């Protein structure tokens, strides 16, 4: 993680000179666009030009996270941050992010953008960072609401859940046993989606013949998810479909199904990366799956961080800011900012995406 930080800083550093003018111009635009908001009085001219931003993902070297961070770093430069860093643990465990937050507090970073491995574990560290003046943007996976200024959500959590229940229902013909293969048992976003899925399965009459028989956790580990998928098949011989709301889980499960006798017999959908899923969509293991564009998530998070640092927004409901080319975003109840609707990928459109 040390190497990554150095190289990022260097790269950003060399970019800074050439992009400074462009960035300033963009910030000014963003500032004037945001002039309609009540708190915008001090924006525009007062936009900080030496602001620093640090992204703390759940775990480094995770392909999905990398796409998010790619968008985040581009967004940070475009939004006008002087330096953008990425630091974080190599494994996604509850307490692993705390030491990184503490280091950022000591470094005096202006904005911390974090995807929480655990909503509570990071709270006191974030509290200290805020006391020291940092703005906290949660993205991808929320912290407790009182520990951050805004939360950038890929999509409305409920939409993510509903698209997955809809896809699995279509793929198994509206009836039969299904199971969920998730990330860790305490992953904030997966658990929220699963809750919505369960409610939808219970309440929507279209799904009355679908029975959720198991929820298992592959811990976002390739080998573990693989073995969990296998176990599902043995424990539930009548299983018709699997929903895996995590990119590692769906890819591992797809690999297992495609190399076993269950290929084509057990449906699989969930949230996956097109690059990881391409071969499984083409060989017929998976018909359709969903995801948002992860780069946009990072981008919106960076713009939100800049607006907070500049004082353009405070994170109050109704605050508006411009996320570059993505247009205007509004802070909703609970400090929530939504990026956009999920996309469904299948063999007809998957080649149009590269992430």
């Amino acid at each position: 993680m040390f190497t990554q930080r150095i190289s990022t800083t260097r790269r950003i550093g060399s970019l800074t000179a050439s992009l400074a003018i462009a960035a300033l111009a963009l910030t000014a635009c963003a500032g004037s666009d945001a002039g309609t908001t009540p708190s915008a009085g001090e924006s525009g001219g007062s936009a900080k030009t030496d602001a620093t931003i640090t992204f703390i993902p759940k775990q480094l070297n995770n392909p999905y996270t990398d796409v998010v961070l790619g968008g985040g770093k581009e967004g940070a430069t475009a939004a006008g941050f002087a330096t953008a860093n990425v630091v974080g643990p190599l494994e996604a465990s509850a307490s692993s992010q705390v030491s990184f937050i503490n280091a950022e507090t000591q470094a005096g970073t202006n904005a911390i953008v974090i995807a929480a491995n655990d909503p509570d574990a990071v709270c006191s560290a974030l509290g200290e960072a805020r006391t020291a003046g940092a703005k906290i943007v949660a993205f991808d996976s929320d912290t407790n609401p009182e520990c951050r200024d805004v939360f950038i959500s890929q999509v409305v959590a409920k939409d993510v859940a509903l698209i997955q229940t809809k896809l699995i229902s279509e793929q198994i013909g509206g009836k039969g046993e299904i199971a969920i293969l998730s990330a860790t048992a305490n992953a904030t976003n997966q658990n929220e989606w699963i809750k919505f899925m369960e409610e939808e399965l219970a309440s929507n009459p279209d799904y009355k013949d679908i029975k959720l028989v198991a929820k298992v956790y592959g811990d976002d580990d390739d080998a573990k998810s693989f073995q969990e998928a296998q176990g599902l098949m043995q424990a539930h011989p009548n299983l018709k479909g699997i929903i895996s709301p995590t990119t590692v889980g769906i890819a591992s499960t797809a690999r297992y199904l495609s190399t076993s006798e269950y290929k084509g017999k057990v449906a699989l959908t969930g949230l996956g990366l097109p690059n990881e899923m391409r071969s499984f969509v083409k060989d017929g293991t998976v018909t359709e799956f969903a995801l948002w564009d992860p780069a946009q998530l990072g981008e919106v998070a960076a713009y939100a961080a800049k607006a907070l640092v500049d004082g353009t927004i405070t994170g109050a409901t109704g605050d508006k800011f411009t996320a570059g080319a993505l247009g205007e975003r509004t802070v909703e109840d609970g400090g929530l900012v939504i990026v956009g609707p999920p996309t469904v990928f299948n063999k007809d459109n998957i080649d149009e995406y590269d992430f």
Partner: protein
Amino acid sequence: MSAPAIGTLNNSPKQGGKSASAWLKLRELPVTVALVVLVVVTAVINPLFLSPQGMKDLLLNATIMMLLAAGQTMVIVTRNIDLSVGSILGLVAFGTGSIFAANPNMPIVLVVLIGMVFGAVLGSLNGLLTVWAKVPSLVITLGTLYVFRGLNNAWAGPKQHFAGDRPQAFGNLSVNTVLGMPIITLVAVIVVIILAIFMIGSRPGRDLYAIGSDPEAAKLFGINVSRRVFTAFLINGALAGLAGVLYASRFNAVGATTGSGLELDVVAAAVVGGVAIFGGSGTVIGATIGAILLNTITSSLTALRVDKFWQQAIVGVLIITAILIDRLASLRHAKNLREKEGRNV
């Protein structure tokens, strides 16, 4: 092999002639019985457990761990340990992905050889450091665990190679079966058998036991301890390399975190299989059965719909049981020996 000679140089009661075979039997028996009982009970409750697909999955799951446990046994027997095997596996697995991404037409046999050589180089680094620096291998390999993992992180970054990028024929090694066994399992079984014969039936193999029983005595006896220990690390590295290549055949993604955390599972498998953690006794076959047992526990708990959070606790109980059995056996053996010596006087 010259059993009597080794017998004389060992002060430890764990070696020599007839009693050694009784000893080995005792050490491998519990784990074998546990495995059989587990499989039978699970299959009675859920017949799907032993369906052709179920059997195949069981064997495939154990394959990687079998190789690692067999290699680790060689090292542990010499009173050493190699904690870096998970990192070696990760580096080789990612290397395999990289080779195929750059050149999909590379012959598979050549890739396997490259992987084993790569693993052997990493393993020999462990061996060199342990032998030359005379620092306990626990510390050395704890260091290389992080060094190798760091290299993997620097090399791979967020890049992952997926099964789709590798040739179909390579992936099929973990799908197609010969004699009811997936090809990669067959490879692992052959390697384990060769290693077991080497350990039991060859002079260098027996030397490893002698070194583990009493390094000083082994040195006095004229065994080149440094060279033997170095070789054990090298072979263990090569096996971890082979396991890395097979991992790339079986699983979808190989990247920076591939294989992390495996090392403790491997040591657990060896201990459960009757390999004494302080060296000098235990067999490759026992460790291999230990590896199969640990993997089978995971599979059978899932097949029986037992909450998987219990699994770790059960593995822990098994490790402690294995050590207790080991302790009881060695106490009894020491007593027998005392009595025998008493009569001689």
